[in-house]
């Protein structure tokens, strides 16, 4: 526990830091509900996915139904209700990346990690996703590991990057 940080919600499932952040977040907008999308994403960053308990608490914090939360949750492609790997590898295959070998990078990741699209490795360290344009078109092919961008990829470069994450040397942007 971090001293001095106490959430207004009793028995919060989130860390004291995140709970305090949420306490503030719902107050900064003209409507509390505007905090919903960021809260879901930040909750996922901490928990690894959006659990039922997270849905329950976020609904209570904003003052809306759980159904309202699930309705929004199901819309956004970055939000998930099942755990991903510790490092979620997201390979872009959209047009600019495709033209410069995005699919080859995806195939390389599949064989290297031994999982398919949306698969998680047995040790839970990595998961793999084929994703739509991530806004790195001029530095294609590109991927994100969690929130960290990796650009101008080659299979050899991917090997180095994934090995770095596997051995705790990768940047873990959260």
């Amino acid at each position, binding site marked *: 526990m971090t001293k001095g940080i106490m959430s207004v919600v009793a028995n919060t499932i989130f860390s004291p830091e995140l709970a305090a952040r949420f306490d503030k977040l719902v107050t900064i907008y*003209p409507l509390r509900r505007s905090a919903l999308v*960021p809260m879901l994403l930040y909750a996922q960053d901490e928990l690894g996915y959006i659990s039922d308990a997270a849905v329950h608490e976020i609904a209570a914090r904003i003052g809306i139904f759980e159904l309202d939360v699930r309705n929004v949750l*199901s819309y956004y492609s970055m939000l998930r209700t099942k755990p991903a790997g510790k490092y979620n590898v997201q390979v872009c295959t959209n*047009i600019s990346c495709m*033209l410069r070998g995005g*699919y080859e990078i995806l195939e390389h990741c599949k064989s290297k990690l031994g999982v398919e699209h949306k698969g998680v490795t047995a040790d839970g360290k990595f998961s793999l996703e084929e994703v739509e*344009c*991530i806004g790195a078109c001029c530095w294609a092919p590109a991927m*994100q590991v969690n929130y960290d961008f990796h650009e101008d990829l080659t299979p050899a470069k991917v090997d180095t990057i994934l090995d770095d994450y596997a051995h705790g040397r990768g940047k873990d942007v*959260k």
Partner: protein
Amino acid sequence: MPTLVSHPDEVKVISRRFGLGAAEIDKYIELDGYKAARLAAEKGPEWIINEMKASGLRGRGGAGFPTGMKWSFVPKQSAKPKYVLVNGDESEPGTCKDHVIFLHDPHTVIEGAMIAGMAIGAKTGFIYLRGEYRYLLKIMEKAVADAYAKGFLGKNIFGIVGLDFDVITQTGAGAYEVGEESALMESLEGKRGVPRIRPPFPAIVGLYGGPTVINNAETIAAVPHILRMGGEAYAKLGSERNGGTRLFGISGHVERPGIYELPMGYNLKKAIYEVAGGIKDGKKLKAVVPGGSSCPVLLPEEIDIGLDFDQMGKAGTMLGSGGIVVLDETVSIVEFALRVIKFYQHESCGWCIPCREGTDWIKKTLTRVYEGGGQKKDIDNVQYLAENMMGRTFCPLGDAAAMPTLGFVKKFRKEFEEYVEGKQSGTKLMPAQELVEIH
């Protein structure tokens, strides 16, 4: 970290602080930062809007609507608070220009939003970044905190009583559709990103029901520069009715892909062959998608034109988001067209039936053609489906899917026929991976 490129033909206005460390507020101030806001505060709303009108700046998100005019539509009196909303949900495939603005010059977005606020009488601005841009959101958040600490945001800015402006940064969570202005407002209000019917337009009834100006991040980033150099001087940099410069992202099969700031009206062929170094590995050019994936494709013989909204419109395509995607002779257009429609099918929010069903049926039909099981009437069906989506949806996503599809089928019909006749087939996109999230 994205590589910065440069070329002698560039005219650096928006990009003039790139690579100089301007994300730090002291550096930004040293490089004339927040001077335009001070000037705007002294001169007042009417002057700001007149300068913006004189600048000829047109919306950089893709629609190309004149910014000054957009601002002038906001009513002076309003019972509800007015808002500025900066659209940084950059998601159009081929587009990564806002990425470098947030990275290299975040304060210019804050300053531009503040000036827009002064122009329309708004005291709050939102800067919305797509969820994938977390590291850029952190840069923006720090910039906002630094701006508050130095008194450029908050109450009584520049010591002027009543000059208040707050900025709230917001993250998305993965949705192309949210880049559409009305869906963006829905998302910011904590809802699914589905579009709203217009009218009423956001300038009258927008965010939280208040009059709202929504501008693309690049549009907003241009504002401080325009006021500093003067609207007319900015206009002169560009072509007729297309003021200023623009960040063009050149990607795909070129030798030097990157973001280049070129004058509006700059020749497309020159941009590809000189600025971006020509086609990669000395191959031949096959096609150009000139402004993000929603823009109808151009053939090599069609690219000797100026990059502005009007000239591109005359050529039957669009300037769009300025993301120029270059395809060499090795590309299968059928495969490319299928990849494009897969994207729009995945991103269709499902609100309007012509878009939801149309994108899905085009994808299914093109998949069959691509796999080699297609029939000749499939090509006509694709065209029929696309034509029937046009103009029949709340937001332009339906058009954005239909327009490039029509372009591919019309200009490369022969190639589609070859697939149907069994002379070609593809496997790269197969088995069709359904990028469907199950919750």
